[in-house]
Structure formats: C-alpha cells, structure tokens
C-alpha cells in the first residue's frame, strides 16, 4: 500500500548521489514486502478468512435432527447458502462441489458438503433432501425457521433477500462457498468464479 510514495521519493532523488542509508531502508521494505506474501503464506484463489470469527448455525438436517457446526468437527466442511429453485448459481456451485470431490480422489471422504437453504418457506425437508442427494448422496441439506435461517446467515455474514417477480419470488444471496477446517475454524471463501481445480488447490491448504 505504501510503495508508490517511497518510490516517487526515490525517483526524485535519483539524479543525485544515492544515499546508502535510504537504499538500505528501501531494500528492507522490499524484503519485508516479499516475505509478507512469499512462499511461506500459500496464495489462495479464494478469500483468506482465517482470523475471521468462525460462524455457526442451529438448524435441522433433512431427517429432522438438530445440527450445529460442531457436529461436523473432525472433518473440513464446504458450506453453501442457496435455494433449490435457483436456476443457475446453486446447481453450478453444487456441481462444482461434485467435481471437487472427484478431483480430491481419496481425500474426498474427508470433506463434508453442507447446503443451507435461504428459502425454508418453499424448501421443505423432502425437497431439500431430494435436491442435495441428486448431486451427491453424501451432501447434507440444512434448514431452519425464518429466525434460525437469519441467524445462520448473519453468523457467516451471508446476505440474502426475497425479491418479487411477476408471479412469484426469487432470492438474491451470497454465492461464496465457505471452507471450515477440521477444528471448526473458518478458513476460506471460495468465489463462484473459481474452477473446481482452483478450489481444490485452496482446499489442499486445509485438508
């Protein structure tokens, strides 16, 4: 962030004899900048959320069991908020989750995929189960009442809202996939535009 300023100053003094102390200072800054995002910190395609407070939820799975995030401790979780009537983003995200599991090979069994509906009004447990299992029988659909859904979304800073259309309504919603490590810590947000391979690269830092 501060690099443009020192560089401008350096440029201004360039015609004069270089000041060795300033030179040393500048190379130290450059070195610091390098190590800050150097090979030690793995570069993510998604957003690094480590250091952010971990979210949680109080919801029901499609068999009616009460579920919270800690129930899935011991294995990394990929978490997505969506709705089954979504024509576009949600099937694409879940299809990518299927591809990710294929690419992970033997490590896929370590990964848990959770889908939280932001449209519990229309997404009954039956629809939610049929929908998630149509992608992968191991994907878990979660739903709650309006208040529980709002609390779960807020906890992960997920935005959603009902939008009226001519005959019905649709949902705007955050299209990020959250990665939570085996210790229940929020780590990464995978962007919708990331390919399955880019997601796998990011997931490898957590698995």
């Amino acid at each position, binding site marked *: 962030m501060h690099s443009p300023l020192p560089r401008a100053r350096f440029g201004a003094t360039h015609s004069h004899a270089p000041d060795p102390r300033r030179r040393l200072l500048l190379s130290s800054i450059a070195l610091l900048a390098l190590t800050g995002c150097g090979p030690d910190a793995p570069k993510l395609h998604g957003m690094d959320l480590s250091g952010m407070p971990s979210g949680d939820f109080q919801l029901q799975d499609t068999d009616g069991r009460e579920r919270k995030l800690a129930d899935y401790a011991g294995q990394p979780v990929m978490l997505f908020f969506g709705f089954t009537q979504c024509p576009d983003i949600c099937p*694409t995200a*879940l299809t990518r989750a*299927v591809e990710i599991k294929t690419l992970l090979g033997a490590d896929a069994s370590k990964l848990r995929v959770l889908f939280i509906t932001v449209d519990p009004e229309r997404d009954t447990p039956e629809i939610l189960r049929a*929908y998630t299992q149509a992608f992968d029988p191991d994907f878990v659909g979660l739903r709650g009442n309006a208040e529980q859904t709002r609390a779960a979304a807020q906890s992960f800073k997920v935005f959603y809202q009902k939008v009226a259309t001519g005959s019905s309504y649709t949902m705007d919603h955050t299209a990020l996939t959250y990665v939570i490590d085996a210790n229940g810590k929020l780590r990464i947000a995978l962007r919708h*535009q990331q*390919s399955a391979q880019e997601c796998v690269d990011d997931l490898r830092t957590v698995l």
Partner: protein
Amino acid sequence: MKKIAIKSLAAAAFAFCALAGANHVALAQDAGIKVDDAWVRATVPSQHATGVFMRLTSNAAGRLVGVESQAAKHVEIHEMAMQDNVMKMRQVPGIDLPAGQPVELKPGGYHVMLLGLKAPLNVGDKVPVTLKFEQGGKLLEQRVEAEVRGLTAPAHGGGAAANHKH
C-alpha cells in the same frame, strides 16, 4: 429474399390450413431468427421451478418479448448478475437481439424461468416452449422443444469457470 417470401407464404398457408380460424402469428425462423441448443435443467420431485437456456440469433435486429409453456403456470424472462459475490436475479421485460449476433441464455446471464411446474422434469424429457419475438414491428413466434438435462449439466461451453465476465 424471394426464397424467404415464398417460405413464409408457405408457412402462412400451412398455418392457416392447420389452425383455420385461429389467430396466427408468423414463424420466427422464417424471419431469420434461429434458436439453438434449447435445454432445461431437470428438477427433483416437488421442485416447482427451473431455468431454460438457449442461444438466439436474429439476422435483423429483434427482441425476445415473451415465452409461454404448457409445462408451467408462469413463464418469465430473468437476468442474473453477480455483484460483490452476491447473486442477484431480476425479471426483465425482454432481451434485445442485435442483428447477426448470437445471444446466449446461459447460467450466469439470461434465462427463462418456468414457475409452477405441473410435473417434475426428468432427464431426456422434451419441454415445449413457445418464444415470442418482435422484429421490425412484427410479432413472430417460434415453438421449440427444450431437452431436459441433468441437475449437474454445466453452463454452455464449460463449468463455473465459464462465468468469468461477472
């Protein structure tokens, strides 16, 4: 031009014979509007809505102004946009078709929404859809059969990564 005129005349005559007495609208294909690769995403039981995708190309500037289907109670044209990682969907009154330029209705952009489905759509089914166009002040129609593809069908020409423009 002559060929097209004869074709539309033939089509009009055919339509007149077939639907004598019914209000008939000219066929879009005779006005140089092409509909390719129409497909619809499969649904699971009790799921009442899904999207239809296709590629539209119009020789002359035109506009998709409406869609009808007997498979659903309501049919709407929607546009999806990604803003700050939030997916937003809006109903739009129509889609402009610039002359000679293919317009894709695909995941990550425009789609036709079938709402209030009368029955679940299974892979391999065909869903009849009637597209209504406007071109040079005339109303045109085209009936197509959209093929039902699996829930995991990728966006046309690739997966999630193909939606980079948003």
